């Protein structure tokens, strides 16, 4: 049996738009993954704690508020402190190119902008998860 992947989908920050997160959660479910969905308004600390307790292989963060440059680094830092640096972090939302570049350098494995198809997203999750 192939490994059962576990993925956390979380929405950090204060915007209330969770449709994107739900669409991605559903796509990953249909791709055979176990998706832990935590809902709206998660703090970076809550996300790190959930990732630890649920022993996930990857985290998908959906951010539409524009606060990605404060929220994402705090999640990455929390993961490092908790010894979870091997957890792959994906970000979806409205992320300007220069910010995306910075986030990638900080360790985000993939960034998905508006209009990205779920096929592309699922394929990216699969590729990075299989890559160790």
């Amino acid at each position, binding site marked *: 049996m192939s490994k059962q992947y576990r993925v956390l989908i979380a929405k950090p920050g204060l915007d209330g738009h969770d449709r994107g997160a739900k669409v991605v959660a559903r796509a990953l479910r249909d*791709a*055979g993954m176990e998706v832990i969905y935590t809902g709206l308004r998660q703090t970076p600390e809550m996300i790190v704690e959930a990732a630890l*307790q649920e022993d996930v292989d990857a985290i998908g963060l959906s951010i539409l508020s524009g606060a990605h440059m404060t929220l994402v680094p705090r999640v990455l830092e929390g993961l490092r402190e908790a010894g979870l640096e091997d957890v792959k972090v994906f970000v979806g939302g409205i992320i300007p190119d220069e910010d995306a570049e910075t986030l990638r350098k900080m360790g985000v494995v993939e960034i998905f902008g508006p209009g990205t198809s779920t096929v592309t997203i699922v394929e990216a999750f699969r590729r990075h998860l299989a890559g160790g």
Partner: protein
Amino acid sequence: MDLVEKALAGDRRALARLLSLIEDDGPQAREALAALHPHTGRAHVVGVTGAPGTGKSTLVNELAKTLRAQGSTVGIVAVDPTSPFTGGAILGDRVRMRDLAGDPGIFIRSMATRGSLGGLARATSDAVKVLDGVGFETVLVETVGVGQAEVDVARTAHTVVVVEAPGLGDDVQALKAGLLEIADILVVNKADRSGAEQTARALEVTLDLGRNNAGDAEAWRPPVIKTVALNGTGVKAVVEAIGAHRAYLRQSGLWDRRERERIRADLMQALEETLVGQLLERVGEEELDRWVERIAARETDVYTAVESLVGLKEHSRASGR
């Protein structure tokens, strides 16, 4: 094994890894469970079950908060269904448990059923043992949203809380066998909605009917408690009832009896898995496929195949009978 020692010392990452090991099964998981076994048997295991949307997760959130306020540490296993088609799952119980974040006295683990049908995952009872073994004083087990007869939780938990909501059926529903029979505590959640009073009354009447038939005045009579889990109303009464049921189990000797029933069930499950596993290893997929083909072609049937596969009739068949 190192993982078990770390988890026993309070390392939460090791605990999480251990739970994954047990979900994915395998020889390491069995070794870990063997090492943990002497530490288990102390936690009060409370199952929370009921139909989808009755408010199980919200109630678990409130129960955990109240138990924490009273000083008990709380481990939570929340089960959601696996898709029978893709093997994927959405585990969404944490959405309702956000109040519990940041408390080191709480540990929440979501679990997918991975094909089990009784309301729990195959690994749930082992996951409960792990949380018990590392020292959580209360372990809350939230089942998938169930229908009428998914009663596996009764084997895993000491105390079963069945959550109902108004408007789900008339008093004949309350008479039916199954879910209501395993309830040690009945909660009518969403009690601020209309019909809550009728639902509670129908349940009370059913319980009294059962009590007359049992003819045992000492027996536990499940209380019916109305709650509004969303704002915490009535939750304290549920926690008190959980405590009272624990005291009843202890003093009636039922605690030990249920423990033995559970161990027997675990033993049977482990035996089945081991024996079937051994058999499949010996027989192999191809041989199994051949039998499937023969049965489909009506050359033989399932029962004859099983007899032959486990070797019961090998000789008589060979001798041409």
